């Protein structure tokens, strides 16, 4: 995915446009040349193993990277004239929680333990001027709690986070993220910490929440089943790079990149090898910045050879394509 191919989405300008995003510590490169875009109402999944750079990509977009990490590239948001990565902290914090917002993985720690739920929601409305008065913000907070299907919002509103269950807290987080009607919602593994029964409900709330606002969704997960339920389109990340992109159905049925195929095989709970073991991808994800030169998946790939010591480049369009010398469809291997 080198030069960003120009393309147009059917629904007008993209909400989010990321071109050539790099994130690194100065010594190690953790995210390399990531480019993608998300249109209005579009739900894009970002999948990959831990350490593949999914969360860093999200944090870079939000401008919430730790001090020792540096991001470069070009990140644009619809309706914002300036580039986000180079914008000042004041400009970026004005966008966060308003034009773009984020739901984190761990609901148990993502709320301030010493503040009542109502106040935590009301604050995000007051900060961005969506509501001017405290009373109005508090009333809006209770409406938002009702909108995320929390029973008895009046009672929940008066509680402290530790008095709520994980699922309830995560819904509070979603209420906060959706409070100001963002154009872009980023969810970083929002259901990973929840029970399976609560997961489905949470996913439906997220999908409904973005659909109601015609917002763009960037959904980070390592769970293919969850991504298949939620997303229209999927980006597969490995080693800090996007290795494959495509419509969800097409990508899950006819993967091109060996890594995607490996992920799919590993999620198939019925398939077993001769010894009765579930299929896995050989080896493990190298630590950040220690990925091989050329194709990042080279050292774990069953199809790799000496040609893979150079980065294969992107084949196809930005919406649907892959970075591999020997895609699954080809005769090689």
């Amino acid at each position, binding site marked *: 995915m080198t030069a960003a191919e120009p393309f147009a989405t059917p629904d007008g300008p993209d909400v989010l446009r990321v071109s050539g995003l790099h994130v690194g510590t100065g010594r190690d490169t953790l995210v390399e040349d990531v480019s993608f875009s998300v249109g209005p109402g579009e739900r894009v999944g970002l999948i990959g193993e831990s350490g593949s750079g999914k969360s860093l990509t999200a944090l870079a977009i939000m401008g919430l990277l730790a001090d020792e990490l540096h991001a470069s590239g070009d990140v644009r948001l619809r309706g914002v004239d300036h580039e986000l990565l180079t914008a000042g902290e004041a400009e970026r914090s004005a966008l966060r929680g308003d034009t773009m917002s984020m739901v*984190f993985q761990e609901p148990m720690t*993502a709320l*301030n*333990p010493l503040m009542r739920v109502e106040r935590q929601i009301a604050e995000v409305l007051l900060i961005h001027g969506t509501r001017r008065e405290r009373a109005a913000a508090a009333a809006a907070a209770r409406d938002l709690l009702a909108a995320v299907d929390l029973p008895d919002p009046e009672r929940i509103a008066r509680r402290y986070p530790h008095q709520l269950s994980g699922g309830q807290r995560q819904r509070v987080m979603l209420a906060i993220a959706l409070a100001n009607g963002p154009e872009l919602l980023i969810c970083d593994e929002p259901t990973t910490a929840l029970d399976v029964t609560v997961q489905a409900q949470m996913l439906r709330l997220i999908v409904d929440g973005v659909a109601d606002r015609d917002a763009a969704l960037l959904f980070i997960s390592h769970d293919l089943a969850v991504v298949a339920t939620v997303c229209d389109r999927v980006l597969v990340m490995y080693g800090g790079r996007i290795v494959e992109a495509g419509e969800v159905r097409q990508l899950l049925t006819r993967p091109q990149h060996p890594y995607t195929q490996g992920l799919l095989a590993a999620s198939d709970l019925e398939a077993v090898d001769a010894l009765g073991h579930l299929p896995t991808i050989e080896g493990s994800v190298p630590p950040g910045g220690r990925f091989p030169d050329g194709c990042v998946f080279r050292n774990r790939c069953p199809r790799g050879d000496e040609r893979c010591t150079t980065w294969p480049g992107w084949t196809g369009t930005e919406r649907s394509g892959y970075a591999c010398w020997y895609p699954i469809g080809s005769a090689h291997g």
Partner: protein
Amino acid sequence: MSDRFVAEHPPPDVAGSPDRGRSWGGSAIVGATIIGVIVFTALVSFVWTPHDPLLVQGAARLQGASSEFWFGTDRFGRDVFSRLMMGARTALFVGVVAVSLAGLVGTPLGILMGMAPRWLSQLFLRTNDLLLAFPALLLAIMFGAVYGASTFTAMIAIGIATIPVFARVARSGTLQVLSSEYVLAARSAGRSRPAIALRHVLPNIGGLVIVQASVSFAIAVLAEAALSFLGFGTQPPTPSWGRMLQEAQELVAVAPMQAVWPGLAIAAAVLGFNLLGDGLRDRFDPRLDDSR
């Protein structure tokens, strides 16, 4: 999942949540009781003491304990019990002013430095450690030499010397809070840095600061006594426990109990504040959860 399993595997406690379901430990209660008695005594001394603590009665010098003079009299015939009551005032006053000064300056300084860029934070930490190594008593003696020895200079000096302690505690607490996910979430909601400092960091390090205040209070009381003993603190005729100890020292062969009473008072105050500090720490520090 049976009740027994739940009982053996309680859910992890969330640091700083208001209802921890935890009772106050014994040391906090004992400490609070001792301090309560001292505070009560100090307050009563404003309206009533058995005798005038400053009244010199030549005829009643160096008497032993009696129904008239409960703890006896000193070499000027002043009632020791009344002087101890009034001395409690001095001790508490010095403690309150010194600890308030240190806490009100040190805590915001620590938060600020916790939120500063890494290099500035490190520079601050080193400077702070340097100041931390400077003894409070030495600073107070220097202050006394420059501005004249008095209760006021003593408590200001003790307060200034304690600022680095609060700054260090607040800084480390701030770093811990800043690395928490709710601060990241607050930032993702568009909260500005000053607002995060005020609404998220300050309330969540409150416990740490209160514990430190309690411990520093004990140290301040002891420092005032030591300074007064050396003549750099409270000046006669105002009673101070340290001063009383020093006056009694010369007569320890004649009237040993004269030295015991103020010594006991100092020990009780220090013990009380330390016990309270321990008890508060047990309650506020989540790391001690499983160790008890």
